[in-house]
C-alpha cells in the first residue's frame, strides 16, 4: 500500500527469506533423500523410488499405518465428546469449585507425552503402583495399558484439553438465552448440552475432531513407551525403529516414511485451517456476547462432578502421582513397602552425571534465553505480515503452516540432515543452537498464532495516527506497536518456555554431547532401561513446566487462544 523505500523493505525481505529457508530447506532435504536409494552421503546412491518400494513392501509399515489410524480414530471418539461435555460443565453450569479445577484440566497438555506415558507405566503397568494396590485390595486389576485399544483410550483421555479449549471458547461466544429457552421447555442440563449447546458449537467440535485425529497420527512418545512391551508399532515409531533396521543408517527409508506421514498430515493441517476459519465465522454470527448465566445443575451435580473427577483422576492424578512416587523409591513391585524403599538416590545419580546436569541446564536455557530469542523471531515474522495484504503475507501465512504438518521427530531428523548436508553448518550441530533452531521452526505455527493474536488487539487507528503525524513504517512498529503488545509478548514467552520444556521428540535425532535436553534424554534413557533416572528427570521436567505454569497463572496469562 505504501512505498516506504528500500530501507523500509529490507528487514521484511530478509525476514521472509530467512523464514522460508528455515522452513523449506529441511522439508526439501527430506523429499530429496526419499528419492535416493541410499543415504545422501553415500557415493553409490541413485535417484529413484526404491525407498518407497521398500517400505511399501514391508508388512510392518502397513501394520503401523493401520495402528496409527486405529489409535487416531479411537482417541478422537473419546476426546471430542468428553472434551465437549467438560467444556459445557465448566462454562455453563454452577458446578461448585470449577474455577479451582480449571487450570488442572489443562495440565495434560502441558506435560510432555513422554513423561505422561512413563507415568502410566509406573502407575498402571503390570507392576505399577495402582495395579499392585488394586490387586492387594480387590484381588484384581482389570486393566492393561499395552494394547492398541488401551493406547487409544489413554491418548484419548490425555488429549481432552485440546478439545476443551476450543469447545469452551466457542461456548463463551454463545449467548445463554438459547439454553434458557430449552430449560423453560423442560430439558434437563445434560439434555440441554446434548440438544442445544453442543450442536451449536459443532464447527468448533468438528475442528477439534480433525485436530485430535491429526495429533493421533503424529503420536510418538506414547506408542514408544506403551507400544514397546507388546511390540505394537505406529508410523512414527516405525520410522524411529528404521534407524537401526538395516544396520547402516537407512536415511532413505526414513525419509520415505516421513514423506508418507507428511502426505497424511499436510491435508489435515489445511483442513484444520479451513474449519477454524469456519468455526470463527459461525461463532461471530451466533455470538451475542450477552451475559452468560450459569445453568443450575441440581441433582445432576453429582453426575457432572463424577465425570470430571474420574477424568482428572485417570488423566492427571494417576500418571503424575506414579512419577512422583517412582522418583523417590529404589524399586517397586509386589510386596515392596513404599516406606522402606524410599530414597533420594535417583536424584543423586542425576546430579552426579554431568550429562544429565547439562541436560537440565540446557533445558532451562533453551526455554528462557532460547524462548526469548524465539519470541523475537516470531515477532519479526509477525511484523512482516502485519497490516500488509500482499502476496508475500499470504506466502508467509502458508509457510508457517508447513512445520505444523511435520511432526517433531521428523523435523529433528530433517535438521540433523541439514547440518550434515551443508558442511559450513556442521560445527553448529553439536551446539545447543541446532536444538534451538529445530524447536523454533517446529513451533512456528503455534508461536505465530500467539503473536498475531497480540497484534490483532492493537487498534488500526493507533498506527494510522502515527502515520498521519509523519512516522514511517519501521518507526511505527518500534515505537507504537511493539510497546503496545509487550504484555502479549511476555505471555508468549512464558507459553513458549513451557512448550520448550515439554518438547521431546524434536530433539531425538539432534541429541549429541553438548545438545542434551531433558526431553530427548528421556527417550534415550528409556530405550536404555534406566528407569530410576527417567523417573527423577521426569519429575524435574514436570517441576520446570510447573514453575512456568505457576508464573503464567500468577500473571493471568491466557493459557489458550
Amino acid at each position: 500500500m505504501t512505498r516506504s523505500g528500500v530501507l523500509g523493505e529490507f528487514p521484511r525481505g530478509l525476514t521472509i527469506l530467512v523464514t522460508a529457508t528455515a522452513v523449506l530447506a529441511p522439508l526439501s532435504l527430506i523429499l530429496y533423500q526419499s528419492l535416493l536409494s541410499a543415504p545422501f552421503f553415500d557415493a553409490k546412491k541413485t535417484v529413484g523410488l526404491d525407498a518407497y518400494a521398500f517400505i511399501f513392501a514391508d508388512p510392518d509399515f502397513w501394520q503401523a499405518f493401520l495402528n496409527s489410524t486405529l489409535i487416531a480414530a479411537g482417541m478422537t471418539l473419546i476426546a471430542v465428546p468428553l472434551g465437549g461435555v467438560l467444556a459445557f460443565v465448566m462454562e455453563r453450569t454452577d458446578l461448585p469449585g470449577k474455577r479451582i479445577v480449571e487450570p488442572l484440566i489443562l495440565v495434560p497438555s502441558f506435560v510432555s507425552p513422554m513423561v505422561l506415558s512413563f507415568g502410566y507405566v509406573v502407575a498402571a503397568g503390570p507392576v505399577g503402583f495402582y495395579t499392585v494396590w488394586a490387586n492387594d485390595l480387590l484381588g484384581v486389576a482389570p486393566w492393561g495399558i499395552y494394547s492398541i485399544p488401551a493406547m487409544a483410550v489413554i491418548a484419548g483421555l490425555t488429549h481432552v484439553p485440546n478439545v476443551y479449549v476450543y469447545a469452551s471458547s466457542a461456548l463463551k461466544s454463545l449467548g445463554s438465552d438459547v439454553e434458557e429457552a430449552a430449560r423453560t421447555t423442560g430439558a434437563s442440563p445434560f439434555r440441554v448440552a446434548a440438544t442445544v449447546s453442543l450442536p451449536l458449537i459443532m464447527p468448533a467440535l468438528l475442528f477439534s475432531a480433525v485436530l485430535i485425529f491429526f495429533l493421533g497420527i503424529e503420536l510418538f512418545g506414547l506408542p514408544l513407551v506403551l507400544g514397546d512391551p507388546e511390540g505394537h508399532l505406529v508410523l512414527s515409531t516405525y520410522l524411529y525403529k528404521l534407524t537401526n533396521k538395516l544396520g547402516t543408517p537407512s536415511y532413505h527409508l526414513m525419509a520415505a516414511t516421513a514423506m508418507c506421514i507428511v502426505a497424511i498430515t499436510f491435508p489435515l493441517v489445511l483442513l484444520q485451517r479451513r474449519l477454524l476459519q469456519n468455526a470463527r465465522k459461525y461463532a461471530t454470527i451466533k455470538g451475542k456476547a450477552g451475559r452468560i448465566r450459569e445453568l443450575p445443575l441440581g441433582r445432576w451435580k453429582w453426575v457432572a462432578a463424577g465425570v470430571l473427577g474420574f477424568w482428572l483422576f485417570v488423566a492427571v492424578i494417576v500418571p503424575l502421582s506414579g512419577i512422583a512416587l517412582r522418583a523417590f523409591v529404589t524399586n517397586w513391585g509386589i510386596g515392596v513397602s513404599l516406606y522402606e524403599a524410599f530414597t533420594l538416590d535417583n536424584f543423586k545419580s542425576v546430579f552426579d552425571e554431568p550429562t544429565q546436569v547439562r541436560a537440565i541446564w540446557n533445558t532451562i536455557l533453551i526455554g528462557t534465553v532460547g524462548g526469548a530469542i524465539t519470541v523475537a523471531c516470531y515477532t519479526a515474522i509477525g511484523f512482516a505480515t502485519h497490516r500488509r495484504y500482499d502476496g508475500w503475507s499470504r506466502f508467509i501465512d502458508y509457510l508457517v503452516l508447513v512445520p505444523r504438518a511435520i511432526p517433531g521427530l521428523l523435523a529433528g531428523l530433517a535438521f540433523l540432515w541439514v547440518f550434515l548436508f551443508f558442511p559450513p553448518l556442521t560445527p553448529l550441530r553439536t551446539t545447543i543452537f541446532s536444538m534451538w533452531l529445530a524447536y523454533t521452526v517446529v513451533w512456528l505455527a503455534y508461536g505465530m498464532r500467539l503473536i498475531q493474536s497480540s497484534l490483532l488487539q492493537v487498534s488500526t487507528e493507533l498506527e494510522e495516527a502515527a502515520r498521519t503525524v509523519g512516522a514511517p513504517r519501521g518507526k511505527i512498529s518500534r515505537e507504537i506497536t511493539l510497546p503496545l503488545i509487550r504484555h502479549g509478548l511476555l505471555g508468549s514467552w512464558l507459553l513458549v518456555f513451557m512448550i520448550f520444556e515439554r518438547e521431546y521428540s524434536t530433539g531425538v535425532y539432534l541429541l549429541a554431547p553438548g545438545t542434551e535436553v531433558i526431553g530427548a534424554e528421556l527417550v534415550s534413557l528409556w530405550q536404555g532401561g534406566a528407569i530410576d533416572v527417567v523417573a527423577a528427570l521426569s519429575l524435574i521436567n514436570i517441576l520446570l513446566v510447573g514453575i512456568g505454569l505457576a508464573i503464567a497463572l500468577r500473571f493471568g496469562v491466557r493459557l489458550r487462544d
Partner: protein
Amino acid sequence: MAELTVNDLHLKYGDNPILKGVALTLNRGEVVSLLGPSGSGKTTLLRAVAGLEVPHAGSIRIADKVVFDGATGLDIPAEGRNLGLVFQSYALWPHKTVHDNVAYALKLRRVPSADIESRVKQALTQLSLAHLAERFPHQLSGGQQQRVALARALVYNPPVILLDEPLSNLDAKLREEARAWLRELIVKMQLSALCVTHDQSEALAMSDRILLLNNGVIEQQGTPQQMYSEPETLFTADFMGSNNRLSGRIAEISNGAALLEGTGWRLWGTAKPSAKQGGEGTGLIRLERIRVASAQGENCLEAKLATSMYLGDKWEHLFELGANRLRAYGDRPLAEGRHWLALPREELWIF
C-alpha cells in the same frame, strides 16, 4: 488560496464503488464539513485525503504540492503528507503520556529538544491541558482526550487539519460546549479544517461551508444558510432539519411556483428544478414553518389531530391527512378534532 484541492476522486473497495468522482476545495482559514448519511463515503473521502485509503482515479493537492494523482500513479504515503488528523476514537497512544503523545510528531521531525518542550507546552496551554501533561490517556475524561488528540494534530502546524466525527464520542451536553469551543479555536488559530460529521446541526454550527455527500457523490454544497434555506434537491432538503413531507400530483407550474394536489387539499409552493407539471410531486416544509391556524386562510389544509406531545418549551402536534402525517409545533395544547394548518407558499418546496 486553496490549501486542499480534491479533483474527480474515485475509490472502490473491491468491486464496490465508494467515491464516484468527488471534488472539493478548502481555502485557508476555512472550516468545511463533509456531511452525509452513513455509507455516503464521507469518512472514506477524509481518509483518502489523509493517505490512509488509496483512490484509483482523480487527484489530491495539498497547498501547492500534489500528493495523489491517479493518472501518473503518484501516491505520497500518509506519513509524507504532513496533515493533522483527529480520529473519531482519538487513537491516543495508551503507552505514552499526554506530553509524549503530543511531542511524538516533533521528535519525528527532529526538532531540537528545547523547541519540542516549548512547542508542546504552548500547544497544551492553548488547549488548557498544561496541568495534565504527565497523565496517561486512560486517566483523562472524554473531553480531555479529545483536546489531547487535537493538540497532537496541531502541534506541528499542518496546513490542513482533518477531523473525523470529532464530537461523536462526547456526551450530549458536553458536545454542545465542545462545538462552540472547537469553532472558536479553529477561527482564532486561522486553521483550515475539513470535518466529517453525520450530525446536521453540528455541521451547520461549525462550518463555513458544507458538502453534503450522498452515495459517493456530492449532492450539494454551500454555506450553512444556503444548505438549510435553499436546498436544490429533495435529498438535501430532507437531510437538513426536521421536515414534513406531502405526496401528491403537480397540477400546475407557473412563475417558479408549483401547485401540489392531494385528496381534499391543494397547496402552492416554490417549484424546485425536479418538479414536472402533471407528475408525482413531493412537498417539503420545515417543522418550524408550519403553523396551526385559527381559521381557513391562504395555502391552508385541514387535518385531524392524532396526538400531542409536550416537549417542555413547546408542544408538538401530530396530524393525519389521508396517508400523509404532518407535525407542527405550538405553544399550547389543542382540542381534539380537525384543525387548519397554514403552510406559507415560500416555505413549502415542491420537488
